[in-house]
């Protein structure tokens, strides 16, 4: 954390790395702009305010919106953030920038391929489509280019992770007795669970979906590929969230004028995410036939315990802000809140993102509950929930911190902090209106993922207000969010357009009140935690996967019979789980 010796902005310290991060950020912002436009068009289409295209094509909007925002926008941004975190905290450049540009290129090419396949869906003249949404459940089929693009993108992200590991390995050989600096620790643990979890989707895409879309195999199993998707599909949520958490831990305290409350607890939190992120995915399949109730219950317990690191984070992060506020003269139980730097969009955006995440935590708790899932499954409630998590906790944090990163990466002053503040507030208000209405609509049964939620023959029974009013709330909220995105992009463009200054604060991150010296050494034992993570994944997934293959064969009913050994495994496993569940019930 001794950054004094190497003062200056990030661009001054690491010009080559700054260029990579800048490029990744710009890629991410392009995705953000297009994705946000798709979002606005979707809102208008669903609510029947403006329908530019036939409803059959709505699902290409939706696919583009989801893929561009949750994969492209967030992952391009976060590889930039982690690259910043690793290089800054180790105080050393990446090992080989050609390698770095290599993974960036792979991710960019992958995105373009998938994007072309999706956009093909809008034009009859292009024999290509990928209206399979972000979850691409087989037997819905996309053009091979979509699956190939996805695979390249994911491989690119793995190579990025390896890049950070290479830096750490090199640093460790020179500093054998030092603790892993916290930001690097966070990037590495996140990389580890990302690689473990994305194995699921990689197998699904490379072994089944891609050969099938090329006509090499005749059929694939709907339940198996779906389960493999969710093997990755929940952990990916934490892949987006962890960089936001990292920024809350290492950036927010500094901007509040204080120090991180506890380095050891931050490490505990990231270790918990490493070991618990993946063995929870089946909670997206609570209502799937073909998966035993016992498996669902086990996964629910894992999911509930995954709340713990987030709840701990809430405390540590708020306490760090409070520390800053009190150092700035804040007093009282709540009065200290006034002493925080609300004028700064970096702070205001992150703090409001955190506040919305607290609300998202609640709907997430509901989603994690096994039987209550009957109430909310596949309704608009779910969409309301993840627009608070990825759509605000992550997206708003990324946008707010851009106001800090961009000057660091370009040596240019942010174009207008006032516009920045207006932008983050607009996002907050827009999302409040939109997600509140989505949650409430979901409770009365309004489905997600549909071009026309208006059906003839029945009405939704709205408890408070009217359906029209809820829809109006979504329309206004969606519009405000779109305006907010435009403001954000304007600030970015104008900033990049500006001229360089040399009055910028030096690169750095928050110091800690309780430092790594208080953290037990075992926390830094990444091999141990990875081993535990793998064991937990095997425990949570071996039996459900074996059971699916045992019941349905590798390629689905009507396809090939399952291998003998799997039947034996399933029989034994099922007996164990049944007796375990018998004890619970």
């Amino acid at each position, binding site marked *: 954390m001794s950054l004094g010796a190497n003062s200056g902005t990030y661009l001054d310290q690491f010009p080559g790395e700054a260029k990579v991060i800048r490029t990744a950020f710009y890629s991410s912002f392009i995705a953000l702009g297009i994705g946000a436009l798709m979002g606005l068009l979707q809102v208008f289409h669903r609510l029947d305010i403006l329908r530019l295209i036939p409803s059959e094509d709505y699902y290409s909007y939706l696919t583009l919106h989801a893929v561009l925002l949750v994969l492209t926008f967030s992952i391009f941004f976060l590889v930039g953030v982690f690259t910043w975190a690793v290089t800054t905290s180790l105080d050393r450049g990446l090992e080989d920038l050609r390698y770095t540009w290599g993974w960036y290129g792979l991710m960019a090419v992958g995105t373009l391929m998938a994007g072309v396949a999706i956009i093909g869906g809008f034009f009859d003249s292009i024999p290509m489509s990928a209206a399979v949404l972000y979850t691409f459940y087989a037997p819905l089929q996309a053009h091979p280019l979509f699956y190939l693009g996805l695979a390249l993108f994911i491989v690119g992200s793995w190579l990025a992770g390896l890049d950070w590991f290479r830096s750490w390995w090199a640093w460790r050989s020179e500093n054998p007795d030092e603790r892993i600096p916290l930001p690097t620790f966070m990037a590495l643990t996140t990389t580890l669970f990302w690689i473990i979890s994305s194995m699921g989707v990689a197998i699904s895409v490379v072994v089944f979906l891609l050969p099938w879309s090329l006509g090499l195999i005749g059929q694939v199993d709907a339940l198996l590929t779906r389960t493999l998707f969710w093997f990755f599909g929940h952990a990916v949520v934490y892949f987006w969230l962890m960089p936001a958490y990292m920024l809350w831990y290492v950036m927010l305290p500094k901007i509040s004028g204080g120090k991180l*409350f506890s380095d050891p607890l931050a490490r505990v939190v990231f270790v918990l995410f490493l070991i618990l992120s993946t063995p929870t995915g089946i909670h997206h399949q609570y209502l799937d036939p073909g998966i035993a109730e016992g498996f669902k219950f086990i996964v629910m317990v894992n999911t509930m315990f995954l709340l713990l690191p987030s709840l701990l984070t*809430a405390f540590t992060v708020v*306490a760090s802000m*409070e520390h800053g506020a*009190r150092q700035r003269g804040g007093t*009282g139980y709540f009065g200290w809140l006034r002493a925080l730097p609300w004028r700064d969009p970096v702070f205001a955006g992150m703090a409001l993102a955190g506040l919305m995440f607290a609300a998202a935590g609640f709907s997430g708790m509901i989603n994690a509950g096994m039987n209550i899932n009957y109430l909310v499954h596949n309704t608009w409630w779910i969409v309301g929930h993840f627009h608070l998590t990825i759509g605000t906790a992550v997206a708003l944090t990324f946008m707010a911190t851009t106001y800090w990163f961009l000057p660091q990466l370009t040596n240019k002053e942010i174009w207008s902090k006032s516009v920045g503040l207006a932008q983050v507030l607009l996002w907050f208000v827009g999302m409040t209106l939109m997600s509140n209405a989505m949650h409430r609509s979901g409770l009365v049964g309004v489905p997600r993922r549909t071009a026309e939620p208006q059906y003839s023959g029945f009405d939704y029974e709205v408890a408070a207000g009217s359906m029209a009013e809820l829809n109006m709330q979504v329309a206004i909220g969606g519009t405000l969010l779109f305006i907010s995105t435009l403001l954000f992009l304007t600030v970015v463009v104008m900033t990049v357009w500006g001229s360089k200054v040399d009055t910028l604060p030096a690169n750095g991150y928050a110091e800690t009140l309780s430092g790594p010296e208080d953290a037990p050494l075992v926390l830094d034992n990444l091999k141990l935690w990875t081993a535990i993570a793998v064991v937990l994944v095997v425990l949570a997934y071996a039996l459900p996967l074996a059971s699916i293959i045992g019941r349905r064969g590798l390629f689905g009913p009507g396809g090939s019979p399952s291998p003998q050994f799997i039947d034996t495994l399933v029989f034994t496993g099922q007996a164990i789980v049944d007796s375990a569940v018998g004890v619970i019930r």
Partner: protein
Amino acid sequence: MSSKLQREIGHDEFDPKGTLALITIYFVIISVLWIFMYFVEFLGNDLTVVGAIA
């Protein structure tokens, strides 16, 4: 940034009582909402008894 600091507060002299207050409020809200969602919204819904094989 440090120019705005009025005082330096170390680890041992810092009790985050404001955080404790905020987070206690959060705890109460979450608990009440959970009970409401489960017992009123979910169990009070129509066609509730799903599954139980008669």
